[in-house]
């Protein structure tokens, strides 16, 4: 075992170093972190709309008799107005996820490369607008003939188009810093204030970027670039089909989530920050999936339980727009209970069964941060890191919890689609909020916690035995 562990470490450490030091991945991480508050505010708006201010049969206000659901004409106006406010919040948050990250990622990558990020961020936003289609087909009347109008489908600003946003941000930042590094810029005399000088410095790289993206977009819209019968109305549609859809199919399913959940703990076992190291998986697949669920729920296409409310609209969704079971919300709600490795279960097992006073003390000290899913004290204090006794349960627990949650969803025991929640949400509360105010989801989170306690229990007993043996030997 010890040999196996040290061998694995030799292999993993350089991988972690590469993944963490890689500038593009770091900019992706920081770019998404910057949008987190907005995404959580937007998700809360949708949660409130669906849980509190919902006017369908059996919802909270209807069952309390405050709103008469039988007669829509009698809906109080304040109710409609509150829902409009919530929709407006959604429009400025979740609905524009791709627009937000196209700026923040280009900004961060440029800053990491040692230049001011604002100019690159603005250029990136401009390039992104060129890369979406400005024409859209809409029916003249409901179910009527389709006509082309000049309009942008908001779907292109949302989570479905995040891959395009990431690629454009990378491209813009690379080109921009290339120009600056080689000083291919218009130089201003030194009397000119630096901010003015910088905006002139962005002229040449900016022109180059916009011309390149504009030509590429023209090649798609005029169908000069096409693949047999496949044509694309924009750079965005092309990237969604060629990269977004395969990524979603290969990485976004049960298998992808299993790899993510397992590897997070493999890295942690060697004392390397797992979620940070694998943030690129989370942020290109599992977090956008939760945002996309929120988009579809807000538009009334599906609900949290997985019912399709608008079949026609659902059938029109492309692969990258479909709702997904496998989201960051699933792992945050049902797997990362008290932190990676469901270590709140281990803390409870230690408090119940440990005969080692030092370990009990660490369990007590780790309890409060664990309520907010922070578990560094336990990982390094117990430690779990490099602890051969805990290797097996710590590595296996997340695949097990992912699987039980997936089964429960597929058997219809708990809601199907989760929306964005803060990863620091306490056990149970996260599931409640993420799955549309569902008490069954909350109960299931506690079931998962009990399961993890049970899985850690025998290993705590084993730790006791080793501790006692050691004490006896020392006593001799």
């Amino acid at each position, binding site marked *: 075992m010890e040999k196996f562990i040290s061998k694995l470490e030799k292999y993993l*450490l*350089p991988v*972690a*170093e590469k993944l*963490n*030091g890689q500038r593009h991945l*770091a900019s992706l991480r*920081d770019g998404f972190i910057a949008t987190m508050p907005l995404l959580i505010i937007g998700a809360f708006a949708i949660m409130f709309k669906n849980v509190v201010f919902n006017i369908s049969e059996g919802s909270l206000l209807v069952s309390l008799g405050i709103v008469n659901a039988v007669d829509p004409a009698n809906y109080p106006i304040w109710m409609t107005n509150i829902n409009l406010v919530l929709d407006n919040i959604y429009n400025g948050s979740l609905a524009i996820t791709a627009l937000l990250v196209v700026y923040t990622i280009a900004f961060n990558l440029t800053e*990491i490369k*040692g230049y001011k990020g604002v100019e690159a961020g603005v250029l990136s936003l401009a390039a992104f607008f060129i890369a979406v289609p400005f024409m859209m087909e809409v029916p003249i009347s409901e179910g009527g003939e389709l006509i082309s109008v000049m309009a942008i489908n908001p779907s292109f600003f949302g989570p479905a188009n995040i891959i395009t946003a990431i690629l454009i941000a990378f491209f813009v930042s690379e080109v921009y810093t290339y120009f600056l590094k080689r000083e291919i810029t218009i130089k201003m005399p030194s009397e000119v204030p630096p901010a003015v000088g910088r905006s002139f410095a962005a002229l040449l790289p900016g022109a180059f970027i916009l011309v390149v993206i504009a030509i590429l977009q023209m090649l798609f819209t005029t169908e000069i670039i096409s693949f047999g019968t496949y044509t694309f109305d924009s750079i965005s549609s092309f990237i969604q089909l060629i990269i977004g859809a395969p990524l979603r199919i290969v990485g976004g399913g049960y298998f992808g989530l299993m790899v993510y959940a397992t590897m997070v703990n493999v890295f942690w076992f060697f*004392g*390397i*920050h797992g979620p*940070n190291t694998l943030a690129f998986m989370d942020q290109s697949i599992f977090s956008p999936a939760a945002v996309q669920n929120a988009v579809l729920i807000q538009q009334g296409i599906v609900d949290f339980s997985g019912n399709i409310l608008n079949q026609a609209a659902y059938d029109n969704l492309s692969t990258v727009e479909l709702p997904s079971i496998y989201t960051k919300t699933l792992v945050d709600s049902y797997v990362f209970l008290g932190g990676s490795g469901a270590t709140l279960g281990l803390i409870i097992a230690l408090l119940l069964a440990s005969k080692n006073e030092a370990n009990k003390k*660490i369990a007590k*000290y780790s309890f409060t*941060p664990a309520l907010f899913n*922070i578990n*560094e*004290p*336990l*990982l*390094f*204090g*117990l*430690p779990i*890191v490099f602890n051969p006794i805990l290797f097996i349960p710590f590595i296996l627990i997340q695949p097990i919890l992912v699987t039980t949650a997936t089964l429960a969803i597929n058997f219809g025991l708990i809601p199907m689609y989760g929306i964005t929640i803060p990863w620091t949400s306490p056990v149970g509360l996260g599931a409640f909020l993420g799955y549309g105010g569902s008490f069954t989801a909350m109960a299931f989170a506690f079931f998962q916690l009990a399961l993890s306690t049970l899985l850690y229990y025998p290993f705590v007993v084993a730790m006791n035995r080793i501790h006692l043996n050691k004490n006896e030997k020392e006593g001799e």
Partner: protein
Amino acid sequence: MQRILLVCSQGMSTSILVQKMQNEAKEQGIEVLIEAHANASLENQKGNWDVCLLGPQIRYAKKQVQAALDDIPTDIINMQAYGMGDGKAVLKQAFELMQ
């Protein structure tokens, strides 16, 4: 005054440790500046610090951090002390490193 920099990946759990170290320093009557910074934002920190301690979860980044800080004495925080938030032990580790 001695200046101690703690570095980790986000500065979250390390900031708890900073607090504990500051309390410990106050108790011992030592005047010292302690801050926690994220690994990715060390560009402008050159010359600001006398000693640097890394959170154990980013020990692979030691060389990179040392390079960003002009080769000041740098070490990994003792794992157990980090986990338990043992301000006294980490403060001691920092001062030993400076000698």
